[in-house]
């Protein structure tokens, strides 16, 4: 066995991705690429109405179609329990049963009412059309405020209201806030502003549609579910609950997954239906979502009305922030939906000091597709409200928005571990530093000078600049906090590292990446830590048979929790290897230095390489007394705190006031995600996040008509921006390590999406401010911009 010393570090370098080879050659294994012998195709019959009673379903014609194997209604396909909802935020929460196939009535356009099973994809499609449902259309409610009116149509009659429950920080938060806001809003000496923002409903649009394949071994009662999911582990547990198949008989595989952004952080009716069908028919089944179908059937995000009030001194010192949200749940409470607004609960005073803070929200049922986590989940909403409001306050006070931010930032010397006004403890930050860097890249003074010159010249195109200085809590999450918030699971994650006999390393992670590059990053972490070749590290994930424990990928937790778990498992391996090395080298453990894979007796040239130790631990011929064979370790890591990435973003726009068109001229992102394991991947995450944030600000909106029909029901009308619609990005960073974990990492997956929307809208409002415009609702479509100008003029 060759023993070589590895000294070069790969952590912190932009290693190209291990994941790419199959993806660039068309050899990836996405769910729709999986075919199982004897497989049948599943199609869902969905409600064309947002709200309608089912008076009967005639499936005879569909059953008669040659090639159709089965057709079932909600009464004919049985489940052990409704779909699982994991976040009953408090005792107030109203959680209706969500049956995979609705039985009594449809509560949103797209609600599945029957399922067809056929020999081919095309035949399943044909059979859907032959199912005849006797609908009795009911009045629908799709507007959040209208849903709370006394005479509103009721989505779930058993509750007698569409109010799904409220959460109040003062009452429900496990940590106390700094103080109540009422005295400040009553103080006549203070300047007060009140803003209302409406956040449009969004459709996540992972480019891979969802899909499920269920393979079955009927005699053994064993099932393998291949699902385009972010959460194979959570899916397995919840499918056990819904379908009554024990976890030991249920293997869930997330194969290559084509993006998620939260849309695949869900337990969907189709997952349960396909599993139930495979059991009932004893045959493998497959369902692949069509895009337009997915616009109805896959979760939506964001939609809420925000009321936010700020109180500040006349010279711009922020004193109090008060927030009241009304959030759309859609027709049911999905997996973690009731808690999504809560993920922003402690963030609505942003990066700023204040003396008092109040926050509450109310969840509302409407006849729309259910909402749940979409990239950033709760945190983009918070950043939007406070960053728009800071600009509004600056205007009110006649201050430069940058100056107002600087004046109120929590100072760098308050960290580490500073308890902010909302009550949570922030690990580390240098808010002034990131903003300074952003301003430097931008050349702020020059830009303001150009803006002034253009305004004086009377240029048609209006130049505007907008900022967003943001922070977030990610690395979800410390389990004790989750428990206090009534969340239905832990926030830990699992990692196993195992040396193979020949010295290669097998890493099994409980997170389930789907584009993030975790396989590459985790290999970097392990290679450096254990002193083995980067190419000798194999990272496995996403299959409950390989990785039985895990909490999956969402909430920027891959690095912040998953890699830390891995690192701690690595520490255990090094400890064991050290004991073995001391045994072999006949020295005390304390006398050994570990570097580049070698344990060296201090002051000598006697050493043992970890690969050799791994081989010896496998043969187990000469182990210390009591040591088990093998060199491997598992860590279940529960983070002691959230991690708190932050940053300063800036957008420069040109607005054409005659057409309302907005052109993003520059976009600068300066983010601080702590220590960067792979800067190339960090940058990539920022790019994608910013793209989705700009899309949210300028393009995307799921619009419904009064009857509850989704009028942006295809990719031709729901506007995911293409390459010409987005600018190049100027991405920079600062590095403030997190003191919470040994690696100093924080997380970057959601940064861009959190930061970008207020930067863009603030820039538009800045451009239009000479015309008297103070707000443009998002997305800032040409028509909305034009109308805002007309209203300001009139």
């Amino acid at each position: 066995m060759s023993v070589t010393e590895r000294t070069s570090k790969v952590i912190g370098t932009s290693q190209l991705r291990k994941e790419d080879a199959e993806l660039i050659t068309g050899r990836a294994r996405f769910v729709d690429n999986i075919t199982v012998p004897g497989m049948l195709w599943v199609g869902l019959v969905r409600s064309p109405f947002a709200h309608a009673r089912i008076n009967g379903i005639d499936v005879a014609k569909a059953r008669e179609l040659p090639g159709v194997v089965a057709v079932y209604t909600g009464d004919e396909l049985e489940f052990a329990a409704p779909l699982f909802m994991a976040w009953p935020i408090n005792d107030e929460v109203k959680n209706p049963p969500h049956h995979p196939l609705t039985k009594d009535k449809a509560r949103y356009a797209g609600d599945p009412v029957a399922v067809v099973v056929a020999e081919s994809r095309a035949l399943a499609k044909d059979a859907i059309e032959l199912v005849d449902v006797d609908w009795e259309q009911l009045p629908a409610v799709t507007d959040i405020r209208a849903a709370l009116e006394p005479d509103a149509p009721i989505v779930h009659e058993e509750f007698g209201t569409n109010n799904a429950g409220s959460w109040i920080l003062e009452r429900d938060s496990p940590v106390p806030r700094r103080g109540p806001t009422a005295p400040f809003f009553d103080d006549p000496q203070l300047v007060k502003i009140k803003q209302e923002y409406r956040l449009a409903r969004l459709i996540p649009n992972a480019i891979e549609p969802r899909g499920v394949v269920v393979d079955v071994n009927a005699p053994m009662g064993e099932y393998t579910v291949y699902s385009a999911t972010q959460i194979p582990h959570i899916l397995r547990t919840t499918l056990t609950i819904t379908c009554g198949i024990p976890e030991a008989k249920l293997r869930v595989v997330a194969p290559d997954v084509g993006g998620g952004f939260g849309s695949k952080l869900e337990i969907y009716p189709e997952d349960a239906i396909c599993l139930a069908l495979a059991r009932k028919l004893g045959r493998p089944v497959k369902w692949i979502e069509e895009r337009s179908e997915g616009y109805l059937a896959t979760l939506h995000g964001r939609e809420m009305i925000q009321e936010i009030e700020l109180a500040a001194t006349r010279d711009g010192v922020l004193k109090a922030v008060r927030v009241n949200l009304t959030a759309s749940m859609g027709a049911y409470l999905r997996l973690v939906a009731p808690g999504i607004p809560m993920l922003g609960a402690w963030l609505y005073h942003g990066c700023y000091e204040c003396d008092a803070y109040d926050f509450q929200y109310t969840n509302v049922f409407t006849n729309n597709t259910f909402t749940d986590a979409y990239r950033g989940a709760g945190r983009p909403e918070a950043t939007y409200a406070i960053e728009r409001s800071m600009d509004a306050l600056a205007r009110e006070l006649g201050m430069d928005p940058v100056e107002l931010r600087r004046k109120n930032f929590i100072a760098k010397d308050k960290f580490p571990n500073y308890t902010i006004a909302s009550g949570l403890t922030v690990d580390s930050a240098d808010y002034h530093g990131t903003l300074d860097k952003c301003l430097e890249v931008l050349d702020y003074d020059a830009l303001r000078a150009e803006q002034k010159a253009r305004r004086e010249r009377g240029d048609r195109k209006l130049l505007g600049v907008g900022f967003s200085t943001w922070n977030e809590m990610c690395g979800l999450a410390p389990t004790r906090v989750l428990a206090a918030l009534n969340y239905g699971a832990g926030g830990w994650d699992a990692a196993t590292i195992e040396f193979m006999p020949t010295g290669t390393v097998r890493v099994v992670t409980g997170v389930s990446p789907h584009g993030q590059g975790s396989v590459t990053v985790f290999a970097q972490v392990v290679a450096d830590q254990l002193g083995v070749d980067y190419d000798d590290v194999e990272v496995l994930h996403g299959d409950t048979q390989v990785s039985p424990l895990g909490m999956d990928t969402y909430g920027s937790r891959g690095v912040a929790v998953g890699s830390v778990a891995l690192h701690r498992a690595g520490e255990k391996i090094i400890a064991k290897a050290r004991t073995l090395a001391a045994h072999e080298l006949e020295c005390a453990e304390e006398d050994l230095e570990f570097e580049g894979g070698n344990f060296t007796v201090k002051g000598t040239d006697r050493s043992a390489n970890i690969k050799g130790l791994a081989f010896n631990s496998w043969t187990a011929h000469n182990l210390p007394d009591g040591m088990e064979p093998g060199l491997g370790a598992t860590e279940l890591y529960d983070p002691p705190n959230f991690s708190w990435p932050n940053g300063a973003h800036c957008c420069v726009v040109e607005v054409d006031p005659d057409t309302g068109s907005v052109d993003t001229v520059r976009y600068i992102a300066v983010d601080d995600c702590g220590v960067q394991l792979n800067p190339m991947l960090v940058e990539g995450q920022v790019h994608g996040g910013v793209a989705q944030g700009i899309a949210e600000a300028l393009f995307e909106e799921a619009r419904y008509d009064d009857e509850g029909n989704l009028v942006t029901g295809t990719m031709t009308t729901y506007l995911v921006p293409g390459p010409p619609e987005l600018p190049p990005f100027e991405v920079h960073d600062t590095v403030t390590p997190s003191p919470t974990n040994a690696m100093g990492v924080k997380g970057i997956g959601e940064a861009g999406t959190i930061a970008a929307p207020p930067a863009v809208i603030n820039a538009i409002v800045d451009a239009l401010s000479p015309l008297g415009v103070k707000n443009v609702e998002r997305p800032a479509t040409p028509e909305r911009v034009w109308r805002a100008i007309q209203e300001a003029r009139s």
Partner: protein
Amino acid sequence: MIPARFDYEVAESVEHAIELLDGNDDAKLLAGGHSLLPLMKLRLARPAALVDIGRLSALAGVSNGSGPLLRIGALTRHHELANDPLVQEHCPILAYTAGLVGDRQVRHRGTIGGSLAHGDPAGDLATIALTLDAQIVARGPNGERTIDAAEFFKGFYETALAPNELITEVRIPKTEAAHWSYIKFRRRALDWATVGVAAVVESANGGIEAARIGLTNMGPTPLRATAVEQALAGASTDSVEAAAAKADEGTSPPADSFASADFRRHLSRVLTARAVEEALSR
């Protein structure tokens, strides 16, 4: 995603295509398929049969007759139109606009004949045909006829073509001498026009001699902004803005998720002024 079942016939000749169409009222022609197939995939269209004329190579290509007309085969694809030297020379507005249709892949497949026959008021090439007073040559069981563009577009997705007729050629007046512009206002590059404005302007003695203004997506068919044309005829270049203010006269723009009818009216006025200015500057 998967169309309903249909019968499929490959036309061996124009006559064969007509014969196949003539026998079946529910048959549709398939050329590039980029108007029809998207509708069929959503099952918004479900013809009983498709007659595939895509292999009739005689219907593709551009030729330069000796007269004032450019002859464009119905199966000429957008990408070819955009890059054809004859079109670029004699009818630059058509080449330019063809390059704005859909996206690159769509332009590799979509044909001018298919675009016009589809009768979509949001189609860019229909507006150009109308603006340039193109002639559409159609053949049916009773032979060939030539339809003026002004007579061709009858309503929303409705044209003067009989169910058993097909477009063989589009004849476009050469406009190399005129100033031109086409402004396609759209949210994303790959989208249909929210509003499009074509301007073809002939100038003389520093003023405007005549102008032709076409509008995309401002009613059930492509439209001419006749009030603007009248106001510009013989006018000075100072009067463009005032003339453009009449752009939406006689239009009935749709309201959809892209824009309200009011905003489309507004856009048509702004864009008409810009198109004429841009044309004059060219």
